């Protein structure tokens, strides 16, 4: 099967890349190349946040059921990554950041990526249903659909708000983890979802500020391309301000303990400070120090999310050991 030729905004460069892609087929990929289709780094974030959602839930889960559920959530996340690589092979080839991925580099064909993505999607949803019930499986199925169809096929190439709405796909894992344990959804799991959802735009816009040419060359309408860097800086600040009440709101739920409260207060103050620094800078200053502040914000955003969820995990452990709560 050959994927339909997609129109791209960047003109002939994109078209040539796409034509070459449909004709390339090395057919001798190694195991690691197929594994790379699943976006292991994204999967590690999925595993971590789903684990936190599961551990923070007030219902104990059999360790084997928990292990299998996390595994199938990870496989489902990986499957959506493979579907993303299948659809986006043409723009991945143009962008420096993604040119070495298995499909654009010619190690794996686009059709193989599609087959891997579809097979693992079905398998992960069915297995999660058997392991944890219909709510968790339904949420996983919706996550895969949202990332592969709503974000990748629709929003990514059509609107500069792509990352805002598409970010929901990456926010589902803690919600699924919580559903594995409780069989449902609650205010706590919705707030964990909201934390990742609100965190995603400033995280990716900071990346876009110092990788702008990549998105421009590929014709992806990132905010930096469509509205310029000044507007992007303003949006980063606005979303960082909106993120803070979500993160602090979790302090008032049953899953927050002293570790989370301390982490949330410190991290949000720090995140806001760097967002203000980025907002105040102009392009001349950013180019002069090679986007140092923007790169720092990007690194800090990774730590921000990891430490918030790490704090929830620590508080859940303290509770289970009877030390707190």
């Amino acid at each position, binding site marked *: 099967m050959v994927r339909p030729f997609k129109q791209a905004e960047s003109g002939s460069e994109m078209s040539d890349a796409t034509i070459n892609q449909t004709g390339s087929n090395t057919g001798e990929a190694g195991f690691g190349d197929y594994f790379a289709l699943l976006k292991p780094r994204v999967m590690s974030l999925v595993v971590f946040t789903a684990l936190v959602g599961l551990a923070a839930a007030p219902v104990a889960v*059999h360790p084997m059921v928990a292990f299998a559920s996390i595994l199938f959530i990870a496989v489902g996340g990986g499957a959506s990554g493979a579907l993303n690589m299948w659809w986006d092979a043409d723009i991945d080839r143009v962008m420096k950041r993604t040119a070495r991925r298995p499909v654009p580099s010619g190690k794996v064909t686009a059709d193989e990526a599609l087959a891997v993505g579809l097979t693992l999607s079905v398998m992960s949803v069915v297995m999660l249903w058997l392991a944890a019930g219909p709510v968790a499986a339904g949420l996983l199925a919706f996550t895969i659909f949202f990332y592969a169809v709503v974000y990748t096929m629709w929003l990514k190439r059509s609107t500069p708000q792509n990352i805002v709405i598409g970010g929901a796909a990456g926010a589902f894992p803690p919600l699924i983890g919580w559903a594995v344990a409780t069989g449902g959804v609650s205010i706590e799991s919705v707030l964990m979802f909201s934390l990742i959802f609100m965190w995603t735009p400033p995280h990716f816009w900071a990346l876009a500020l110092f990788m702008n040419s990549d998105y421009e060359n590929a014709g992806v309408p990132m905010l930096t391309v469509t509205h310029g860097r000044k507007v992007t800086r303003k949006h980063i600040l606005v979303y960082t301000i909106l993120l803070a009440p979500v993160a602090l709101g979790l302090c008032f739920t049953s899953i927050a303990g002293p570790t989370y409260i301390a982490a949330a207060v410190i991290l949000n103050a720090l995140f806001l400070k760097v967002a203000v620094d980025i907002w105040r800078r102009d392009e001349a200053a950013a180019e002069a120090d090679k986007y140092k502040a923007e790169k720092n914000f990007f690194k800090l955003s990774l730590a921000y999310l990891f430490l918030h969820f790490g704090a929830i995990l620590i508080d859940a452990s303290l509770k289970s050991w009877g030390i707190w709560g």
Partner: protein
Amino acid sequence: MSGFREPHELHKRRGGLNIGVGVVLALFVAVVFGLTVAKVSTGGFQMNPGGNMGQSQSQTGGGN
């Protein structure tokens, strides 16, 4: 007779893929087995430990 020759890079790569797929399949079987044991040992092959499916079915059955 050419004797023992160094395997071609292509064969090494295929061998690695075959071993990788084999290990994944073996792990999948182990996970399904472990999950089955866990479900059976927790009683009644309940679909969700804290949830509704197994319980609601038995409750509905009892009520009717």
